[in-house]
């Protein structure tokens, strides 16, 4: 059933948030430190564990797949609810830093990809 997948997703989501928030409180921050990342790893590991055990989850999987296909529409809604005006009114600083950081990051991608490839060749 779809709800099994959604429920598993919700479990991973909450467990990740709890780990992230706990880590945050350890270093005295009220934020959530990497919670979404922990949730994703949890889902990946549980998913591959179930597959390894040959447990058929294809029907429950649809509940998760639905939410993953909702990602782009949600990003569209999120973009529409950003404070775009403040980003522009925040002075040149915001624009210069935002643009510069992104361009340099783009240029670093091929450099680091080479390291990744060398890694693969060694294996």
């Amino acid at each position, binding site marked *: 059933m779809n709800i099994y997948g959604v429920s598993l997703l919700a479990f991973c989501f909450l467990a990740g948030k709890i780990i992230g928030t706990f880590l945050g409180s350890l270093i005295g921050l009220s934020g959530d430190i*990497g919670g979404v990342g922990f*949730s994703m790893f949890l889902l990946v590991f549980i998913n591959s564990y179930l597959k390894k055990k040959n447990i058929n989850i294809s029907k429950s999987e649809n509940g998760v797949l639905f939410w993953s296909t909702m990602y782009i529409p949600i*990003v*569209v*809604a*999120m973009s529409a609810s950003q404070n775009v005006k403040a980003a522009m009114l925040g002075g040149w600083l915001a624009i210069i*830093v935002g643009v510069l950081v992104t361009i340099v*990051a783009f240029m670093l991608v091929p450099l680091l990809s080479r390291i*990744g490839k060398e890694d693969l060749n060694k294996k």
Partner: protein
Amino acid sequence: MIENIVNANGLIFAFFIVGVIMYLSYLFSKKILNNMIPGAAIAIIIALILAFMGEDKGVSNLPYMGGMAILGGSMLRDFSVVATAMGVDISKIKQAGFSGILSLFIGVSFSFSLGVIVALLMGYSDPISLTTIGAGACTYIVGPVTGSALGASSEIIALSVATGVVKVIVTSICTPLVATKIGLNNPNSAMIFGGLIGTTSGVAAGLAATDEKLVPYGALTATFFTGLGCLMCPSIFYFIINALVS
């Protein structure tokens, strides 16, 4: 009467509106641009233009549109980000392991440094403001988290959020345009890209517009970026800036 119904069912109305935006964007991309710019990118650009019509919460400040903030809020966003991990292949994560982690540390460090340098050049000199603006150059979440942890002024915190939002916008629009040039066409480079840029929404939006299959790989490293930024900016990086300035 219609206003009451729409306002009482804001999220449902947002589903409808976003669906219409997506449909028109994909149609425009296919029929007029011959798929030169992907429909997802056009939908995000339209969304950002719509956001201009509102105030601090973009289009959701306008009547009827309150549901957009719910649909695009952090809860559903994070929920759907986690869901994208379902398609992730573990063996590929292991492959990108070392370069993925390296890209995360390089990404956070260089974003922060670049932000601090530009802020210095533009006349900011106190360590708290410098650190907060540098954190904003990481993501619009790292900025305010760092700013509140260090006790920065609300003006500086707002500026750090704005910096992060500019990064999201540039990443969303430019990723599909430069993807071929920077070799962004496989899971390995997508993970490095996610680790270097780090704004989950920008990375996912940009990758979605480039190749939907790459989204989970980029999102996987990108989600750790904000965590790493929240970890390092208010602590190690602040100590370094504090020592350098005074």
